[in-house]
């Protein structure tokens, strides 16, 4: 699966102006709404928070993947945010979170949801990539790291 198919430049927030986990989640849901990803902001926020209440989505190494299957989403929707200072996410390894990928997908739509989270976690869980992402200045630069240009070739589907 290709991350690039779900993460346009517009869905990247290079500097998330949040001071807490809750604020970060709310800002990101609102960003999704601005991208016309949601049919109901309130429902989306409720679903994200209720998943977060079950157990932290801070999977370690500075990465958090808040997500939910929500009626408010149209298909699989994602936004990526960077927080240079780091947020307390009560993560599994206790470290502050710098990269947050929020994913919402409609409960009835088949296909990747957790698989997308795993793909992005795999990409971000790499020190050189994290370093490059911290150095990047614009959304476009981040996008180029997360979604490298498609390799073209007959035998490379």
């Amino acid at each position, binding site marked *: 699966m290709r991350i690039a198919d779900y993460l346009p430049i517009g869905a990247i927030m290079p500097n998330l102006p949040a001071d807490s986990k809750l604020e970060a989640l709310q800002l990101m849901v609102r960003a999704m709404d601005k991208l016309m990803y949601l049919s109901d902001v309130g429902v989306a926020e409720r679903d994200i928070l209720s998943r977060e209440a079950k157990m932290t989505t801070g999977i370690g190494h500075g990465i958090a993947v808040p997500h939910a299957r929500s009626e408010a989403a149209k298909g699989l929707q994602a936004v990526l945010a960077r927080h240079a200072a780091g947020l307390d996410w009560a993560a599994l390894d206790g470290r502050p979170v710098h990269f947050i990928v929020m994913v919402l997908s409609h409960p009835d739509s088949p296909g990747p949801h957790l698989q997308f989270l795993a*793909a992005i976690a795999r990409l971000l869980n790499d020190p050189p990539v994290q370093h490059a992402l911290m150095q990047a200045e614009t959304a476009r630069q981040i996008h180029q790291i997360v979604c490298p240009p498609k390799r073209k070739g007959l035998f490379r589907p």
Partner: protein
Amino acid sequence: MLLATPALASEAHDVPHLMVQLVLQLAVIIFAAKFVGELVERRLHQPAVLGELLAGTIIGPYALGAIPFPALGPLFPRPDAGAPLPVTQELYAIATVASIVLLFLSGLETDLATFLRYSVAGTVVGIAGVVFSFALGDLLTVALGFADGFMDPVALFMGTVSTATSVGITARILSEKRKMDTPEGVTIMAGAVIDDVLGIIVLALVVGISRVGAQGGDLDWSAIGMIALKAFGFWLGAMAVGLALARRVSALLKWLRSRETMGAVAFGFALLLAGLAEKAGLAMIIGAYVMGLSLSRVDIAHELRERLSPLYSVLVPIFFCVMGMLVDPSAMRGVVLFGLAFTAVAIVSKVAACGGAALLVGFNLRGCARIGAGMLPRGEVALIVAGVGLAAGAVTQSMFGVAIMMTLVTTLAAPPLLVRLLAGGSGLRSRTGQPTEAEAEPLTLELPTVEVAEFILSRLLESFVREEFFVHRMDPGARLFQVRKEDISLTIRRERNALHLTSRPEDTEVVRVFVLEEIATLRELMSSLSSLSSLTDLGVSLRLD
């Protein structure tokens, strides 16, 4: 009978009559193959394939099949002298399709990574087997006075007859014993395929030499070179293209959505490559095997195997039964001694050469014995070669009988031998010499009870299926599952109250994310259950009045 013969002759091109005959033949074949197969399996504890071959000989045109039924005539009429095949073309066509099913599924069962790792070993084994069995078969014919010298066409043909391993029989046993993806299994398969490619080339060479011997003139080396080039070119080219395009084919198959359609279309691809292989001068089964091998590493491989297994169960016994029918026991009269000697040499040369070669490429004695026995059976290819020799006039009827005897004995001897040898431990000399695929430490979840572990397991599998992963239960007796999608592949095993998840290092995130979600669900479930004041109250409302 005298009255019936002209009536039958006029019916020879009568399509409904031919179809009735074919359908009845198939019915009898299926009954006989399955019945004798079961009997051999249950009473003699031998593989069913042995029973199917025997059933074929018993009901075939050289035995019971030739006995005429009133009003119907014989079900399997004895062939006319000089007929290329002792069974009808229609029946042989069905057997050919069946052989494609067999080899396509054998390819699907093979582990591609292991196959490629042992392809060099397989090539060495295949070449050694061809060289030794050809030389010894040829020399024995000369030594017993049936030919004048090594280059005498009779000797050359007898040498060629003893080269070609019948991959079908070995593939069937490896599949039955679930040994297709072991080092020995893939070495035998790779060796048998190389053997086939070489066999085609040797046959072309021998036919050319015998033609020069009969008509004079020079050997047409360029024509023989072309045959060799086409055979090798197709084998390597098909492998390369198959590997490169496997994922595209798999994507196309998945686009079909219906799993039944997926299996049917995949089989269409197998037929396509089989036809192309035959066009390139190779055997159809090689094309079918390459197609299966290419698809063996895609995520839908298990799905395809499951969809095609009913086809396998019906058609494959027909193939072996028809193979049994090709054998004429009476052809062996008069050449029994030569036949015995030739058979013994054919056995010894393959087992010694292939086993010896296996010893050189890292197998221990047990592995060598398995590989030698696996390369032992000669089947349809030997009969085809002998048939070509007969048609070219280089092989006499009695030599043909010798070829049939050798085929029969090696074919019947291989299954019991191989089954016995496959039991027991590893056939590799050292475990360290075997580079295992990099696997991460399995993630182990200890859960409080078996029931909770089973609950999490079924939830996990459900969430994989929901994300369009293909889940395959590996062993019906144990809780062992393989989960695949595109490049991702992992296994989940439950042992008592523990779940073990094993994946390649690059897929650990998938494992972790999926497991994390189930743990989150479990936590929520626990807290919501503890808020339930009393489960006894719930029980009260369920009690019988």
